[in-house]
């Protein structure tokens, strides 16, 4: 019974963050919580292929960046008043830019996945990394959109009359997207489709022996996962009011992987814990010392050593939402 209360309790605490921050006079906490929520969306998306499907993609930052750039580029064309490629008008409305980001991320993931998923194992890791670096260098060289320096978004997107410039509003929006996304992912992994994805991780040979050609399922999972990362990127662009190629750098792909592994692969809440741990530690340690990465490393090693199945294994069983 106590376990059953865990989720609503966590959610209540998460919703209350802006008020608590105000009461304690630490407004920066709201921004920190927003970053955690946004990275949690991206990590949970990566987890669909990495944790549930066993497909080690080392290039998911590409979709995070593409989602961000979709918002950034649409804003730029809105500002300049000239359509993108002469046909697509710019926009500064989240109701337009958010679905656009999902579309762009999904298309990119479908294309890259279609090629990468013809390989497996180490080859798959390297090819997803290579594709992501290609996208990274493409944006580094795109001088129109700021190249290396990135792109400023001077005004956050309009969204149903809400002011996304207000940190609390931005946070609640990110949290809302996270909750809806986790709920959807929860349905997906429990569905017939999800059962096949989990089968892929466990034994490709067994899947063939029951008559399932796994490629289309892997591609669908990869595409959904890319869309989730793009959603996170679109929120990030509104949160930071800035996008740059750094969003797609391979180290960012690595960070997303660390969040998934740290929190607990193949669990629904694991990536959220992983995001909280990594973003939170970075924030705390960088406030204490300039050489914070020197301290972060050993802490991550300790967590992995003492919680082999990730931070989620420290929670009571029902909160883990793991199958089986």
């Amino acid at each position: 019974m106590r376990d059953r209360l865990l989720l609503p309790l966590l959610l209540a605490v998460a919703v209350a963050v802006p008020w608590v921050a105000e009461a304690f006079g630490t407004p920066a906490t709201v921004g920190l919580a927003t970053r955690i929520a946004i990275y949690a969306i991206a990590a949970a998306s990566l987890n669909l292929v990495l944790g549930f499907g066993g497909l080690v993609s080392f290039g998911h930052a590409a979709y995070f960046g593409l989602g961000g750039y979709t918002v950034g580029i649409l804003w730029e064309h809105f500002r300049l008043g000239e359509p993108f490629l002469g046909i697509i008008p710019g926009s500064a409305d989240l109701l337009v830019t958010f679905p656009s980001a999902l579309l762009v991320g999904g298309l990119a993931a479908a294309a890259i996945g279609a090629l990468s998923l013809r390989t497996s194992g180490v080859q798959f890791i390297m090819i997803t990394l290579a594709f992501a670096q290609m996208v990274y260098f493409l944006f580094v060289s795109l001088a129109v959109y700021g190249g290396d320096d990135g792109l400023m978004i001077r005004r956050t997107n309009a969204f149903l009359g809400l002011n996304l410039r207000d940190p609390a509003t931005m946070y609640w929006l990110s949290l809302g997207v996270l909750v809806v996304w986790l709920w959807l992912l929860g349905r997906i992994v429990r569905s017939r489709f999800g059962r096949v994805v989990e089968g892929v991780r466990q034994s490709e040979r067994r899947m063939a022996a029951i008559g399932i050609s796994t490629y289309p399922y892997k591609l669908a999972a990869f595409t959904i996962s890319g869309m989730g990362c793009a959603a996170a990127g679109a929120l990030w662009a509104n949160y930071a009011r800035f996008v740059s190629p750094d969003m797609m750098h391979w180290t960012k792909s690595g960070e997303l992987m660390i969040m998934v592994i740290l929190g607990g692969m193949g669990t629904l809440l694991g990536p959220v814990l992983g995001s909280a741990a990594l973003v939170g530690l970075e924030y705390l340690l960088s406030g204490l010392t300039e050489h914070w990465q020197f301290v972060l490393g050993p802490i991550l090693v300790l967590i992995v050593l003492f919680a082999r199945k990730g931070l989620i294994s420290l929670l009571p069983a029902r909160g883990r939402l793991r199958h089986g």
Partner: protein
Amino acid sequence: MAEPVLALQGLHKRFGGVVATDDLNLEVRPGEIHALIGPNGAGKTTVIGQICGEITPDSGRILFAGADITALSFAERVRRGLARTFQIVQLLDDDTTLENVALAVQAAQGHSFRFWTDARLDRRRTDRARALLGEVGLPQERWRVRASDLSHGERKQLELAIALARNPKLLLLDEPMAGLGAAESLRMTEVLRGLKGRIPMLLVEHDMDAVFALADRVSVLVSGRCIASGLPEAIRADPVVREAYLAEEEA
């Protein structure tokens, strides 16, 4: 005579300098259990691999249910009604016994691009899975156990239940008795006898008691070649076979 369910025609396969399958012709007729025996390294598992599509033959044809399936993938062959078990059991170890079978049932019911409903609560998957588990004799108290926690014999039974999920037109059994104790081996023989007549089988097996208890026809493979094929009694009496194989086994 009725058309064979499976026909191998002039199958060849070499791995480097080793000839694994040498001009093999073999048939499985409707309703029969055809046993393929031979000493270790005779190429029996390579034959199974080529029939199911995991290994591509260098030349020759594989006809299944009247169609040439030589170019099809493993999964496509399974969808056409081929089913196999593995010498080393292949299961989804993190899933329960019931879920292993339920996924096979799900696969038999068409595509799995269904994202919304909870698959585990779907009676269309589990009802049939329960029936199959009953058929191979796995007791109900083992259905909720993770596949990795089952005994070796239970894992073999589970794999058979999975193979039956599609009502296969042919069952390829790669050493179903391997590693089983005497009692388990007897139980497996009984289960297979229960399926006899309904599903034709190609049985690769070292356990001669099981082979002679089940098989309608026996073929003997030595160094990739079929050196004899016939009724069990004839094979048992064949001096060439005795010299090449049975004598060695009995000694």
